[in-house]
């Protein structure tokens, strides 16, 4: 189990039932909002383009909420899903971002289903360069700012890679990590390469 912050532990102590693998962590009332779109256990909902968030690293969730808040994400005209998300992040203050990130990190959900085709073998070769920041097993590297990639929906990985390539994401001048990722994504030659690397990432250990 990942290290929990004090906030996480405080949140969990409030729960009347112990959260087990089958029973999702109950969020504080004001964060029930998150589960409406992202699913009761943060397992994601492809129908409304809300990605699986269960078990994401707390620091990364916080950073993305900040990114939405600052307008690094969710302002590009072609980013319908991001637009939908942005106002939710924008009303959170720092303490709330900390709380909600701890909540997201504490939730567990079944692994995401595979929905896309791709060649994992070709993807493995492409992934070699991704591993430098995201870890050989996709486990992430906080020191380098590379989030874990395991446990994400394949359709979400695909959309985000496309967004990096097209500049929908990672174009804001203050978004250093986003710009880094954008440069990396530009090395993916075509849609097939994206599909292949996403397929490979889906084979990496789940959280």
């Amino acid at each position, binding site marked *: 189990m990942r290290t929990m912050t004090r906030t996480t532990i405080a949140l969990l102590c409030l729960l009347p039932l112990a959260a087990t693998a089958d029973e999702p962590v109950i969020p504080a009332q004001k964060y029930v909002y998150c589960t409406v779109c992202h699913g009761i256990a943060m397992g994601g*909902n492809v129908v409304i383009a809300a990605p699986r968030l269960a078990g994401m690293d707390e620091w990364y969730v916080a950073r993305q909420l900040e990114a939405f808040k600052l307008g690094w994400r969710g302002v590009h005209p072609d980013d319908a899903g991001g637009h939908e998300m942005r106002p939710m992040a924008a009303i959170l203050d720092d303490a709330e971002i900390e709380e909600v990130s701890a909540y997201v990190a504490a939730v567990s959900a079944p692994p995401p289903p595979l929905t896309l085709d791709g060649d994992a073998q070709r993807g493995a070769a492409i992934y070699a360069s991704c591993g430098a920041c995201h870890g050989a097993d996709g486990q992430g590297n906080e020191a380098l700012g590379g989030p874990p990639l395991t446990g994400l929906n394949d359709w979400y990985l695909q959309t985000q890679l496309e967004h990096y390539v097209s500049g929908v994401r990672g174009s804001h001048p203050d978004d250093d990590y986003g710009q880094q990722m954008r440069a990396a994504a530009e090395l993916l030659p075509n849609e097939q390469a994206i599909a292949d690397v996403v397929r490979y990432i889906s084979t990496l250990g789940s959280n």
Partner: protein
Amino acid sequence: MTRDQITRRHFLNFVGAVGGTTALYQAARALDLLPETGEMPQLDLKRVGRGEKRVLILGAGISGLTAAYELERAGYDCTILEASHRVGGRNITFRHGDVVDEMGYPQVVNFDDEPHLYFNGGAARIPGHHERAMHYCRVLGVELDIMANDNRLAWTQDDESFGGERLRVREFTTSARGFMSELMAKAVNANAFDQPLDADDQERLLAFIKAYGDLGDDYRFAGSSRAGYSSGGFLKHGELKPALEFKQLLNSRFWRMGMHFNEHVDWAAPRMTPRGGMDMIVRGFLNKLRAKPLLHAQVQAITLRDDGVEVVYHHRGERRKLSGDYCFNSIPSHFINGIPNNFSKDYVDALTAMRRGNFFKIGLQMKERFWERENIYGGISYTSQRINQIWYPSHGIFRKKGVVLGCYAFGPDQSNWFERMPPDQRIAEAAKMGEKLHPGYTDMIENGISVAWGRMNHMMGCGNRFEEDQEHLFRKVQAPEGRHWMIGDQISFHSSWQEGAFASALHAVQDLDQRVRAEAGQG
């Protein structure tokens, strides 16, 4: 008995004898014995004893309330869980102090605290042929008023025609019909019709065309009093307004929209609305129901069992479990993926194939009823701008203030455009557009709210429906999965109408009744 004599009843008796009651019930479904008519069905539910059958109802919108009302009358015990802070679903009337619970943009309604200053943010109009809606208004004691929809004195405005200037609806409509009639008269005189017409027919047809477009004796359109006079008409001879330029009429989008909206089966005049706000229907149900909906109760899991349905929900930090014999579920189909369940893949695939809509409305409190000074009392003005429409209240005529619908937007180009802005900016943009219909409009706005159905908490959409090529999946989502029925306007071909919600709930109630009868061996 010959083969021809096998009636459906015989067939069902045969199936019942061989396959037992469940097979009988399934066969009845397959034969579609539950008829589809536009009429309010005569419900004759088999009574069950108190405490005998429990139904879990998920969602306290119109469909959930209707199901609870009818089932309670037949003796069922109902439990209603509602995820949001209120009852009614998309039947919602906003008044002073209410909250618009939009994701990220919560708003408080600042209308003055007066009974006539309210805004129906969802359902707003009931036509007389919506028999179920009318039935429930009748039995719940909901008073209805006629509501103007078509108002020939309202405005039409299109940036692409008549230099963007506003025109009275009556001027546009009169000229458009005049020109069309002139064309038709020429076709008759040139014998351009395929159907043979004798001299009498031809004469009657020409008379009809003349009356339709108010043509002159020469069968030409040269203006009509239907468009209003340019001067006089009461104490002086009325001077006709000249016909409008045909090319400008064609350029306008009004004939694609408002001009013919009033021919639509559900929008044609007259229409009705509950006195005091649409939510009088919701209040009516609450007055009659034994079960009080539990608010802030979000469903966490749905598990179908052979003998019932189990629902886990979350209420103020606690997780609770409920068991019922049956479950009626009005949760928007686009959320099903996010709620743990043991539904079959086919069922989930069908439900998740539906697409959500995102209608968008703005309600504005105006400090004066300036439209009444322009001879407009109720009805709708139409514009090519993203606000689409302005609705004037049919109630409260001559009062000082009124709440106007300042925008009714549909689809990505309109709804999404507004949704992406914070509420204040939405109202500022809608105000700018309103200026083209009513100069000085902005200064009249005291406050307002926007209702983005695509962003409302626990809704995130409205008007769910299948794409045309996927309508074959409808039967799948309408049929129960085990002891679980999906309900709501989404399970109807009248999505985004209350009538769809009533119809779906009644269908499910009748279906449940058939099953209960079958299980009791009284098929």
